[in-house]
């Protein structure tokens, strides 16, 4: 009996050892998820290289050039070259789904870096989380991407629309004591995100300063009617959440009918060439917006070594691209963040570990972000960049002013 008992015990012990060894093998396999070999890391992406949003395509071209630079100058990351596969989705969500499935199921990429566009990312959100493939640093300003509990495989990168809205609110509370605020926003998630952050920033007392809210649909030919109403509401502060075409119209119409509020223009439409020039530079004088990247065409950064390095990079690795286009700065800086994560994941390039590293970024300095801005995440806060500075249009260009505003914490639910 006793002997039998002992042999049973031994058997159990042997089985346990065998199981543990098996587990060990499994763990070793997990450390090398799909898309990783001894010499390569395969990264996928979808972006609009054609169609109405094709102007954004250059972001991913700059990122691709940055990966090329890392491969050429540093031999890749920890000895593995980055293979970057980027497909055109034309900003059409059904095509994003198709291309993303191709990346995951046929190309077997390790992760999806920088898929671009709110509707496009929404379309693959569930798919990526079901297949447990990192959808890392999605390029959209929507505030829904930092949801570690519900969607533990998706993370944004840039400041969210809500953070930006909050920055304007904080400035108004501090600097415009008699503010009477009029708001114009696009009647969809993008517009509502901005207004949500703005109201949170104003607080209960500040919210009473809002005298009128107007909305518009993208199908409307003009927003003249809304601007007329805002003017007649007596507002002296204008929070303008519009896409480029309507931003140009708003700036021009307000100027024409003699309404001169302190005009806060969302960064979505802060392009001098695409928005302010068509509206008229004189009419655009005094506009305020928020930003977080260094603009290579800004004389402030003429002697900045980081900007010089960026310009040299553009010349060597992406000569067709325009260094003054801030989209290229965006692609460069975000690719740098991606490489940081891969480097710090070391040899454990499992998808799970990559998400762990991405959600523990300790406040890293990315050179082309404005001085003082740090990329920081914690397991509970999945919003990498939450700081911005204000800039004012002086009739020729945007001029940074004031301190850095921090909107961290506001995105947490």
């Amino acid at each position, binding site marked *: 009996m006793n002997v039998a008992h002992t042999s049973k015990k031994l058997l159990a012990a042997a089985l346990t050892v065998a199981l543990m060894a098996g587990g060990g093998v499994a763990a070793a396999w997990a450390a090398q998820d799909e898309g990783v070999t001894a010499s390569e890391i395969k990264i996928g992406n979808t972006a609009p290289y054609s*169609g*109405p*949003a*094709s*102007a954004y395509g250059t972001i991913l071209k700059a990122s691709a050039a940055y990966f090329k630079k890392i491969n050429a100058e540093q031999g890749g990351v920890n000895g593995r070259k980055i293979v970057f596969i980027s497909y055109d989705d034309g900003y059409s969500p059904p095509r994003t789904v198709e291309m993303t499935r191709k990346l995951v199921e046929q190309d077997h990429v390790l992760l999806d870096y920088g898929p671009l566009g709110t509707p496009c990312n929404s379309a693959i959100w569930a798919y990526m989380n079901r297949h447990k493939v990192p959808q890392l640093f999605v390029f959209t300003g929507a505030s829904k991407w930092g949801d570690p509990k519900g969607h533990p495989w998706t993370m944004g990168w840039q400041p969210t629309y809500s953070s930006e809205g909050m920055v304007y609110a904080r400035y108004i509370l501090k600097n415009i004591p008699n503010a009477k605020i009029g708001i114009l926003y696009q*009647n969809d998630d993008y517009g509502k995100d901005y207004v949500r952050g703005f109201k949170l920033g104003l607080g209960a007392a500040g919210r009473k300063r809002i005298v009128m809210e*107007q*909305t*518009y*649909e*993208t*199908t*409307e*030919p*003009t927003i*003249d*009617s*809304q601007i*007329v*109403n805002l003017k*007649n509401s007596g507002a002296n502060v204008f929070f303008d959440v519009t896409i*480029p*075409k309507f931003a*140009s*119209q708003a700036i021009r119409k307000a100027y*024409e*009918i*003699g309404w001169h509020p302190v005009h806060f223009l969302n960064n979505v439409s802060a392009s001098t060439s*695409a*928005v302010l*020039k*068509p509206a008229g530079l004189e009419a655009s004088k005094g506009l305020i917006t928020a930003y977080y990247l260094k603009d290579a065409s800004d004389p402030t950064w003429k002697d900045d070594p980081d900007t010089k390095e960026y310009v040299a990079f553009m010349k060597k690795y992406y000569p067709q691209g325009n260094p003054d286009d801030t989209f290229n700065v965006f692609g460069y800086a975000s690719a740098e963040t991606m490489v940081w994560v891969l480097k710090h994941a070391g040899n454990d390039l499992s998808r799970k570990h990559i998400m762990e590293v991405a959600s523990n970024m300790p406040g890293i300095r990315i050179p082309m972000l404005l001085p003082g801005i740090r990329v920081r995440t914690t397991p509970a806060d999945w919003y990498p960049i939450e700081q911005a500075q204000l800039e004012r249009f002086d009739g020729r260009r945007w001029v940074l002013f004031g301190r850095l505003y921090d909107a961290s914490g506001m995105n947490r639910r």
Partner: protein
Amino acid sequence: MQTFVAQVISGLSTGGIYASIALALVLIYQSTGLVNFAQGEMAMFTTYMAWSMLNAGWGYWPAFVGACLFAFALGFGLERLVIRPLETAPELALVIVTIGLLTIFNSVAGWIYTYTIKPFPSPFPAAPIKVGFMVLNPQDLGVVGVTLLMLALIYLFFHSTRLGLAMRAVVENPVSSRLVGIRVSWMLALGWGMAAVVGAVAGLMVAPLVFLEPNMMGGVLIYAFASATLGGFSSAGGAVVGGFVMGILENLTGTYITLVGTKLKLTVALAVIVLVLLIKPTGLFGRAAVRRV
């Protein structure tokens, strides 16, 4: 009061935009019996042509005339090449073809000129005119004036020229028209050409207000349909009145009826289409088609 007047003025100017495209829609309906969904996009495309000519160093008026000629050739050519072969096809096929043309013009314009907005020059002075507390934009007044002028020209053409009479006859009764010696298919092509010219003028007037971009006419077309339905597809004057009414109605409901607000402005246009079709399908000024059997 000040808000009310300002909203009416603003409504009249957007109404002018709707009216000008509605006029082109009605014109093609009157001269061919067809609704052309690509009307707005053709207008947008010819405006880009004018933009190219201006960029090539042409003056405003030469570019204006150039764009009108291009539009005429475009409308005429489309009828001969695309619509003509479907002459005997059911109307539904023609509707599908014009929707196809809509997407083609939109994509081609985006492909050639990109989707970034472009400022477009105006032939009218830039400085706003102040009358009491009212601020009038000369471009807005221009749109209204040019639309009314086009309406007058179209009326004169249809009612006091032989060609106009022939075109009206072709729509009424193509078989008898052919028997009395009218070249029916050429009249149809002529109708397409003329509607395209009206569209081109509309595009040139609208672009300075809303900026030139491939989707410039997308939203306008819905309102233009509502205007033409309201005024009556068989009445050019009705369509123009319908356009102004739509513009003002949309602004006033958006401002004063809190239930509608700015969030449901587009719905107002669609509700108008449905209501008119339910209650008076011929529109306010349209005549019912009566046929002797």
